C-alpha cells in the first residue's frame, strides 16, 4: 500500500513537471509571436510615414518592456522618400523561466531579432 501511494505521488509530480515544462515553452513561443507582431506594426507605420521617429521607437520599446523584455534596441531608417528602402532592426532580450531538472527552474535569456526591409510609400513633394 505505501508503495502505491508513493507511486501515485510520483506519477502526479511527473505529470505536473511535464505540464509546467510545456507551458514554459509556449510562453516563449507567445513572446516571440508578440515581438514579431509589434515590430511588423511599426514597419507598416514606417512605410506610410517614410521612416521611424523617436516617439515610435519609444512606444515600441515600452510595449516590449511591458511584455516581459528586459532590454530592447530599436534602429531604423528615419527618412525615406517614395520608393526608397527602409529598414527596421530590433533586438530584444526576453527573460523567462525554464525547467532545468526535476522541480527546478532557472532564469534564461532569449535574444530575439527583427530585421526587415521594406519600401517607403510616403510621397514627399
Amino acid at each position, binding site marked *: 500500500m505505501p508503495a502505491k501511494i508513493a507511486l501515485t505521488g510520483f506519477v502526479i509530480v511527473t505529470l505536473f513537471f511535464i505540464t509546467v515544462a*510545456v507551458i514554459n515553452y509556449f510562453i516563449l*513561443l507567445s513572446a516571440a509571436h508578440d515581438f514579431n507582431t509589434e515590430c511588423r506594426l511599426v514597419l507598416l507605420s514606417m512605410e506610410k510615414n517614410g521612416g521611424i521617429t523617436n516617439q515610435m521607437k519609444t512606444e515600441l520599446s515600452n510595449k516590449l518592456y511591458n511584455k516581459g523584455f528586459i532590454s530592447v534596441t530599436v534602429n531604423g531608417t528615419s527618412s525615406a522618400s517614395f520608393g526608397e*528602402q527602409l529598414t527596421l532592426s530590433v533586438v530584444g532580450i526576453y527573460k523567462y523561466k525554464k525547467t532545468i531538472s526535476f522541480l527546478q527552474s532557472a532564469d534564461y535569456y532569449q535574444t530575439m531579432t527583427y530585421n526587415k*526591409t521594406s519600401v517607403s510609400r510616403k510621397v514627399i513633394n
Partner: protein
Amino acid sequence: MIFKSNKGSAAGTVVLFAAVLVFVIFPIVSVVIEKNIMLAKGQIIKDAIDITNIASYTALSSSISEGTIGVDNAKLYSVYTSMLAKNLNLNDDLTPKQNSVAEGPVTIDSLIVYLSGFPLVCPDGNTLVRPSVHAVITVPVKPSLYRQVILSLLGKQYIYLKIHVDSDLPLNN
C-alpha cells in the same frame, strides 16, 4: 501469496507508467510543440513575403499619356528577389545565410501581379478585388525533436513549407 501479488502489481504499474510516458505523453507533447514551432516559422515567413509583395509595387511602370499601369517583369523579379533575400536573410541566389529561418535554397514558385479584370481568382483560389501580388514561395525548414529523427529515417532533410500570400498593392497612396 497476496503480498507477492501486490508487489508485482506495483512493479507492473511502474513499467506501464514509464511506457505511457515514453510512447504516448512525450511524443504527443513533442508533436504539439513541433507543430507550434512550425506555425511560428510559417508566420515569420508569411510576414516576410507580405512585406516583399507590397514592396514589389516599385516595379510598376505607368504611362500617364495612355493612362495605364503595367508591370516591368524583369524589374519585378529583380526587386522581388532582392527584397525576399533581405527579409528572409538569404544570399542573392536565395540560399540561406546564417540565422535565416530557411534551412535550404528558397524557390519562388509563382509570382503574378494582377492590375485589372477584378474580381478574379488567383491560382490558389483566393478572390482578388484590388490590384494585388500573388506569390507562392517554398521554404525548406528543418524540424526538431522527434520529427527530425523520423525524417532522417525516411532519408529526407527538410520539411518544405509552401507559403501562399496575396497582398494588396498600395497603388493609391
